[in-house]
């Protein structure tokens, strides 16, 4: 039986791991390669590296980091942040990334999704969507969640799936950093609209939040950062509890 995935997310700035609370106020949570190895040996099903470096030059260190991660760990990982072109993706995949996540570049140029899928296959193209509710409507945001767009979350999700994306990583900015649980209602609605896996992100604070996002939210995978980085939740404990609740996980 296909299992639900637990995905620690490592936010990377200038080659170091950081975690933003509501995307602001960064704190240092260790060396990316060490942390990746720790998670791969302690039950993580997959990892996501999200580069939030400010400049193109600092971002170049990312592909070197990807190479070191690929050498070290034996589980799949996705790389995102500042990816703008087919050439960017080619470099990251060549260095050993299994999947890439594109976000702002896909909004600015949706055709990029089709181009990437045609060249690399649907299985390695994740579209990350940051959204929050404005006047009761889920609106997509750009640039790490700072700039609102005219795009509605659900319409955009349908479009990226039609363009061939293999997976959607949906971060609710209303929930991110709050530790009050994932955006389960929006996630469940997404699952009725698209037929590709959905990764829930933003809001993980306790084990029941994961239970809820896999059941009520119908998520295929759940991503979290600080609860794992600061050892508030051990992945092994989390998985034992999920199993008890009848949710299939890899043990």
């Amino acid at each position, binding site marked *: *039986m*296909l*299992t*639900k*995935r637990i995905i620690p997310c490592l936010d990377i700035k200038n080659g170091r791991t950081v975690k933003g609370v509501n995307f602001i106020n960064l704190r240092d949570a260790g060396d990316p390669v060490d942390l990746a190895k720790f998670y*791969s040996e302690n039950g993580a*099903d*997959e990892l996501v590296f999200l580069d939030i470096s400010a400049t193109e030059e600092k971002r170049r260190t990312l592909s070197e980091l990807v*190479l070191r991660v*690929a*050498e070290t760990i*034996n*589980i*799949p990982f996705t790389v995102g942040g500042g990816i703008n072109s087919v050439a960017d993706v080619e470099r990251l*995949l*060549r*260095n*050993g*990334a*299994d999947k890439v996540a594109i976000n702002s570049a896909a909004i600015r140029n949706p055709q990029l999704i089709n181009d990437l899928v*045609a*060249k*690399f*296959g*649907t*299985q*390695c193209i994740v579209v990350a969507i940051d959204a929050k509710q404005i006047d009761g409507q889920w609106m997509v945001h750009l640039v790490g969640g700072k700039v609102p767009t005219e795009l509605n979350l659900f319409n955009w999700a349908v479009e990226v799936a039609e363009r061939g994306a*293999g*997976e959607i990583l949906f971060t609710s900015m209303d929930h991110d950093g709050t530790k009050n649980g994932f955006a389960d209602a929006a996630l469940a609605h997404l699952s009725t609209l698209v*037929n*590709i*896996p959905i990764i829930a992100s933003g809001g993980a604070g306790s084990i029941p939040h994961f239970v809820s996002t896999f059941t009520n939210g119908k998520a*295929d*995978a759940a991503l979290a950062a600080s609860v794992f980085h600061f050892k508030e939740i051990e992945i092994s404990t989390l998985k034992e509890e999920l199993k008890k609740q009848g949710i299939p996980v*890899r043990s």
Partner: protein
Amino acid sequence: MKNIAIIDYGAGNIKSIQFALQRLGYEAVLTQNANEIQNAACVIFPGVGEASSAMTKLRSSGLDTVIPKLLQPVLGICLGMQLMCTASEEGNTKGLGIFDVEVTKFPISVKVPQIGWNTIENLKGPLFTNISEKEYMYTVHSYYAQLCAATVAQTEYHLPYSAALQKDNFFGVQFHPEKSSSAGERLLHNFIKLALKP
């Protein structure tokens, strides 16, 4: 000592396989040179991406006629395994015809692609030494090989399908052993031991 050859025909993330072998203590060469492939101790045939364009690449390099005639152990991974079958529905392409089975798309009643860790069972043959029934392997694919006479492991996703195939010296796995933690490492080790006896 003879090489382990990883066929490099421009299809996807092949460094992962090289790194996985490195962690097991084996050096492997990435190559699309027919001579080098024919003279290797064993051959890994990877691939992610789209089936018909991958077949086009194999044909243009002449590897489509080299691979089916190899005599040493050959391991196809993911799309590599699918291309070793008779035909694929993806891009309506013929395959290399090593395994007598067709590759078809999952029905839309399940999420496609299947992404994540799933169990393998009904394990048969040398690839699965020291691997238990229902161990988890990481898999990511939209198309699958049906169950057939060559099936040596199966997985269930809406329906049961071939997680692994074997015919003579040819092996194929739908999942990614290089990304499947220690279970995947044991499988790669089993494969290499077929060629490089300790």
